[in-house]
């Protein structure tokens, strides 16, 4: 893989929660405009790694990081890096849908508003295309000003995706976005991920291997804080090089 192809990368990244080391010497390159899945058993550090990319770990007390995290070739932990802009350009969808307790419209318009969009017409357009892109428009078009808390779990999650799209990120991080959803809602989100990769780089954490196989182009397998193996999804699942990976994807543990 060439440098030009990767949008995100880490170099010898280690992360500690106090004395507890959660990530061990991880070097990875996330390819641009592809879907990359991070798989591995619970507690292997995949969510932690994901949260490194938009520096959301900054909010946790006692976190210490070593190594480099690169976004478009620049270290995001550099003091000169603007974390607010970073998060504008790297969106995130969380495990549990977390819409704001306001209307559907205001949820989606929130991001553009904080970034200075005031024009009503522009906001309307952004809200509409974002909801369309998140495959939610048809379901909520007639009740945009109802509370987002009244949506179903799957709808809330797609709303959170629409909210992320409305900011115009280049990368979308997804932290087990379907783990709180039923199979139908899950398949809707998966279809959505497939559509998104045309324009976005998606990094998705999942502990559902079928999901990783279905949606991703590249897969990284993590175990006990280490990145054991990284490569095209088909190869990881059909012809893994590492014994550990093989055991995991064939369901022998995990």
């Amino acid at each position, binding site marked *: 893989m060439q440098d030009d192809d990767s949008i995100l990368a880490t170099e010898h990244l280690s992360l500690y929660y106090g004395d507890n080391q959660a990530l061990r010497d991880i070097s990875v390159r996330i390819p641009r405009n592809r879907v990359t899945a991070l798989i591995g058993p619970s507690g292997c550090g995949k969510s932690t790694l994901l949260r490194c990319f*938009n520096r*959301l770990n900054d*909010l946790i*007390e006692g976190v210490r990081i070593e190594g480099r995290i690169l976004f478009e070739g620049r270290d995001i932990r550099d003091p000169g890096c*603007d974390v*607010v*802009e*970073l*998060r*504008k*350009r790297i*969106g*995130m969808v*969380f495990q*549990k849908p*977390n*819409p*704001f*307790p*306001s209307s559907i419209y205001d949820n989606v318009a*929130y*991001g*553009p*508003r*904080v*970034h*200075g969009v005031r024009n009503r017409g522009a906001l309307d*357009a*952004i809200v509409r*295309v*974002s909801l*369309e*892109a998140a495959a939610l428009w048809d379901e909520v078009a007639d009740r945009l000003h109802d*509370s987002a*808390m009244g949506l179903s779990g799957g709808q809330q999650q797609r709303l*959170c995706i629409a*909210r*992320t*799209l*409305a*900011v*115009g*990120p*280049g990368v979308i991080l997804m932290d087990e976005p379907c783990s709180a959803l039923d199979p139908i809602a899950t398949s809707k989100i998966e279809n959505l991920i497939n*559509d*998104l990769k*045309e*324009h976005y780089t998606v990094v998705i954490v999942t502990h559902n291997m079928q999901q990783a196989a279905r949606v991703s182009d590249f897969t990284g397998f993590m175990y006990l804080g280490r990145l054991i193996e990284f490569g095209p999804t088909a190869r990881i699942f059909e012809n893994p090089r590492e014994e550990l990976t093989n055991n995991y994807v064939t369901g022998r543990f995990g």
Partner: protein
Amino acid sequence: MPEVLPQPGRLSSLWKRTRRIRERAVRTVWFCTAIVAVVAIFFILVFLVRNGYPIFAEVGVRAFLAGDTWNPTGTPPAYGILPLIAGTLLVTLGAMAIAVPLGIAVAVFIAELAPPRLRGVVKPAVELLAGIPSVVYGFFGLVILTDWIRISFEIPSGETWLAGSILLGIMALPTIVSVSEDAIAAVPRGYREGSLALGATHWQTIAGVVIPGALSGITAAIILGVGRAIGETMAVIMVVGNAAVIPEPLWNVLSPVRTLTGTLGIEMGEAAAGSTHYHALFGVAVVLLAITLAVNLIARYVLLRLGGPARRARRGHSGAAKPFARAVPGLLAAATGIPAAAVPLPGAARAGRRVSPKTRQKIAFWLMYASTGIVLLFLGVILFDIVSNGLPALSWEFLTAPPRDLGRAGGIGPAILGTIYLVGGAILFALPIGIGAAIYLHEYTRGGRVAGIIRAGADLLNGTPSIVFGLFGFAFLVLYLNLGVSLLAGLVTLGLMILPTIIRTTEEALASIPAGVREGSLALGATHWQTIWRVVLPPAVPGILTGTILSIGRAAGETAPILFTAVVFSRRLLPGSVMEPVMALPYHLFILATNVPGARENQYGTALVLLALVTAVYLVAIFVRSRYRSSARW
């Protein structure tokens, strides 16, 4: 894929710069308010301790704490506060003997037994008890309760330990009921279902699973009730006789007593600054602070140590399994019909093993109903007495005119206005500082040690008896800063008193906003302040508002802090500047009731107006809370 979607792009550098400056400015403002709050809190503590220290040096720690005579104006003066400590403890003990069983029974009734409609009546009724100003309680105690005791026991005066305990018991009830009820309601449904599924009766489930599960909350409720009883000043002064004697024998409930807080309220105005007496009063305040600290620490320890299932579940820890493990023995006991360890009413426990579970349930429920009836009766009697006797006094002239003939005639207009000035000023002073400090503490610090110390200081002052604030205001603002008895000194004192409450309720409101919401906003590239302003504050507003309104109610009804800082009994004119003293409703009622014979009608009228004013404020708070509660829920 639609092409109109916003494309990835960088923010312009001008935009970035203004944004960074704004972030820093906002942060600085909140930081400054936090500093002001912190300095105020710790200055009060240091000031009290510094002025109290000389008495311990002069008289000696043992002679001061264990001396059995308090007579600071005698020759030679005596500064032993043992009778005062005894008075405080005995009155509190008696109050708890009344309030604890009644309070827990009412809490169980509200949380477990009452049909929704009845709950909707009983709960606000109990909250209304909390809203009655202490001077109104004192007035009721003085006119009705002490009279009743005098006649029933055929003693020369009804101003006794018993009267104080009954009154304080009623006053502590709302605290015990509402905190216990919260704890009971927070016991997870699964526990109840588990017990009922085993064939336990409703009462066995309550006694064996629900109450043990809520035990830490109930214990904390009792401790908070104790704190409330110890800190009360005005109501106590009016009914306990205030003789600094240790009852003889110790259990003689018909003996007059005097409490620590009462001593401050009575003697504060007469002690010359810098005299031994003055330092002795500060010594009393320090003892009160120490008691408050102990009560706080015990309450916190109990909550942490026993850590009810409610708290853990709310924090979302996996520890939810633990309280269940603890509840299992109780569950087994309930299932096998063996009386569980924690039965709130001694009567029910004695019902014995042979009585069938159903009969025991009947007896227990009957006791709950009866307790609730008694509490409602208290409220009914007090309200009926004040309203029926107060209404005839009300007229346009009474509400607007100044008092004549020592308040026997004329009105209370200047007192109403004075109260509004005092409370409005206190809120203007305390609200920005309190809210700003809370935002800084909760949103900008990551709960480090400094924030912890500030929080502990705020907690300590939060439970501190209001008379201690009065003492501080008098000694520091009135005497040392030479503001004199003035509106300014009074509103600053009141403001300082409600500051810790505002800080704490704001912090709680902020803490109730889930972290996921903040992360969601930050992940979209919103700045720290944008996140606070647009996402965190809006849903926190009802909580902050409720806390503020409750503070207004408290400030309006308080007498002790303004006793020697702001008020005069009679004043024809309204104050021309903040440096002049004002009239205030609670103080007016206090003097009318204790010093002016033959003013019965105007006493009741003043009590009714004060009660109506404070109740109205509380009703607004309840309305705001219920109005907003439905709109934000996660």
